[in-house]
């Protein structure tokens, strides 16, 4: 129990460390604030001008859940990059020479990333509200929707830590462009009905699609209706998101901890 108390406190100290970075690097902070806003405006008005929402409705309302899901997926990168840099510069070695529990550093990393990303999400919510997006189903459902977004983001952040501890920072850097196709290859931005069969299969089973369907439902946004013959994760979107997150955590928490112990 005492060990657990220390682990929490150590995690807190590491979270404070990450947040201090943001304070010393206003550029990074501005970037992470501006990015979500730019995404809303770009997708909302560039794509929105050409796409008709299946079943009718406003494109920007259709879009916002996908952008929230995008922040969850993009979050894999800062986790990977920052811990990879720490490993390369020797900061991880210094942590490992300290009498702290071995899980604390990856835990602090993922927690701090989650806290930092909630700021970006808050900005995105504000910009979304400005362009006409609404949460139609009340506070509880909205909270549940953000809970799902943060859960998947947190799980992916552990995947990022495992990746970051396995490769050098330059390699982690080169993975960045791969993150976008993962979010685009889903039902978030355009209906999947027109995609070639193979892509459609991938899109239907993409955790992003399940997250988008689940949150559209919880926000009461258009595009939440799913055909009776749709893929299983779309018909059981909430369960699918919980399942995907649990799977990711089960795989990557031990992997990240193992990589940390023996890096």
């Amino acid at each position: 129990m005492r060990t657990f108390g220390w682990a929490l406190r150590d995690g807190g100290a590491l979270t404070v460390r990450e947040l201090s970075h943001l304070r010393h690097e206003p550029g990074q902070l501005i970037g992470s604030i501006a990015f979500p806003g730019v995404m809303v405006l770009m997708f909302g008005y560039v794509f929105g001008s050409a796409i008709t929402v299946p079943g009718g409705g406003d494109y920007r309302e259709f879009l916002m859940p996908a952008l929230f899901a995008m922040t969850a997926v993009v979050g894999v990168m800062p986790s990977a990059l920052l811990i990879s840099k720490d490993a390369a510069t020797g900061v991880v070695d210094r942590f490992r020479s300290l009498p702290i529990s071995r899980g604390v550093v990856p835990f602090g990393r993922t927690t701090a990333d989650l806290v930092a990303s909630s700021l970006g999400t808050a900005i995105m919510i504000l910009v979304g509200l400005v362009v006409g997006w609404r949460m139609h189903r009340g506070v509880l459902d909205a909270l549940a929707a953000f809970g799902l977004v943060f859960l998947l983001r947190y799980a992916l952040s552990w995947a990022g830590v495992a990746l970051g501890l396995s490769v050098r920072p330059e390699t982690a850097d080169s993975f960045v462009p791969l993150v976008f196709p993962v979010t685009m290859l889903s039902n978030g931005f355009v209906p999947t009905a027109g995609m070639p069969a193979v892509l459609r299969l991938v899109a239907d089973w993409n955790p992003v699609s399940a997250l988008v369907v689940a949150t559209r439902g919880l926000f009461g946004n258009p595009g939440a209706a799913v055909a009776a013959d749709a893929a299983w994760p779309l018909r059981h979107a909430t369960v699918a998101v919980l399942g995907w997150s649990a799977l990711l955590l089960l795989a990557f928490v031990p992997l990240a901890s193992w990589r940390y112990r023996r890096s």
Partner: protein
Amino acid sequence: MDSDLALRMEQVEKRYGPVRALDGLDLTVATGSVVGLLGPNGAGKTTAVRILATLTEPDAGRAWVTGLDVVREPHLVRRRIGLAGQHAAVDEKLSGRQNLLLFGRLHHLPERVVRQRAGELLDRFGLSAAADRVAGTYSGGMRRRLDVAVSLLVHPAVLFLDEPTTGLDPRSRAEVWQHVRELVTEGTTVLLTTQYLDEADQLADRVAVVNGGRVVTEGTPDELKSRLGQDTLDVVVRHAADLDRAATVVATVTTAPPAVDPQARRIRAGASGSDGALVAVVRELDRAGVAVEDVALRRPTLDDVFLRLTEAGRA
């Protein structure tokens, strides 16, 4: 194991893929001493430190820090060590003070103690004025001093300094050395790795020369020098005409026939260790009426020792 040993490594082996980083390394370090691990790049110095600092587990052999087994009791070992240098860094995006606060908290010092200790260390290492600047803006010397300061937060029983002055200018090196000397007077045991021989000469009570993953020789810097390199007697005469006479005199006190360099009017010969040879040669030259411009007994430098010992591994 003996309680007066701060560090002990016994037949430690470590491979990285096909590379044998350590190949049966033995090392003992007495409590309160400064031991220099000296060796070329890739000799295994850093691997030895990483094993002692619980960052890497050995493939074979055992290692203890203050009697605690590094594999079985790493958590206890980590309470007793400080690590600085090549393989432990400070956070460049935090200020000097924030670095000390962060690592102090992670050492589980009470908040009041952390703040007080951070202030003390900033003072001691001449970083007070820069305390609230981001460490990324520090000069190399300042960063290294902060690095050492961080490793001293908890008064470690054993401090590992992994190439503490690599890449520093001479003045910053001298500063880091000064701090290390102060620590030693406070009773901290220091294991220092370096590829600079003068650094080992300046700081270490004992030096272990590492090559090819094992200790090839070990002793005080003076022992190493006299064991491995021979003293050289150097005589320069004023008049070239005296050279032959002087050479005959020199030959009486030296172990090998002297080499004569007429151009420089210099006579050089290996002498066996004692300062008596110098006195004798000066007396005899004077008696023979030879005018001498310079006479000296030169000790080999650690460089000579180092090059001789590590040449074997290269050949």
